[in-house]
């Protein structure tokens, strides 16, 4: 596991042709590792008939709504939680 709970991360911004499960609205956004779900087969290769190995760690990442949506008008403490594969996460300051 590259990350541990509490660590600050950022979702990678990179072009990716083909199937992946990282939503566009999160790309480039900073968040916090909330917990490590474990390791799972990789949908990016499994979607093309491969076995999805090696397993990829998946994290529950918490994002401040205000950092995801610039004009968010809800409670400043609101967060959105999304499962993200490790290879879409980078260390953040």
């Amino acid at each position, binding site marked *: 596991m590259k990350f541990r709970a509490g660590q600050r991360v950022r979702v990678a911004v990179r072009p990716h042709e*083909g*199937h992946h499960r990282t*939503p566009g*609205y999160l790309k480039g956004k900073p968040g916090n590792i909330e917990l490590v779900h474990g390791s799972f087969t990789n*949908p990016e290769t499994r*979607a*093309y008939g491969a076995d999805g190995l090696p397993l990829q760690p998946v994290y529950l990442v918490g994002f401040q709504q205000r950092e*995801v949506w610039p004009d968010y008008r809800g409670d400043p403490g609101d967060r959105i939680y999304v499962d993200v594969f490790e290879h879409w996460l980078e260390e953040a300051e």
Partner: protein
Amino acid sequence: MERAVHDRGGTPTDAPIDRTEHELSDWELLTDALVGALGGEGLMNVDELRRGIESMPADEYERASYYERWLSSIETILTEKGVLAPGELDARLAR
């Protein structure tokens, strides 16, 4: 960064959200069961199902209902794998 048609979280719209429910038709139940059976036989997995849906032309994707997208994907994936011949379904339906 350009997003594919399915990747629409946060996309602004003034269109109302259709929250109506409907009874599933027999063909929809069969489609669901078919995906389960194809998975059980190792012919198609859920990631392939999703990829097939996401690769639909944008206008077809927008027009299609939930299970119509599943059907489209099943045909795409099974044709890729040679389980179905190109045009086989259309030919059979035309009989």
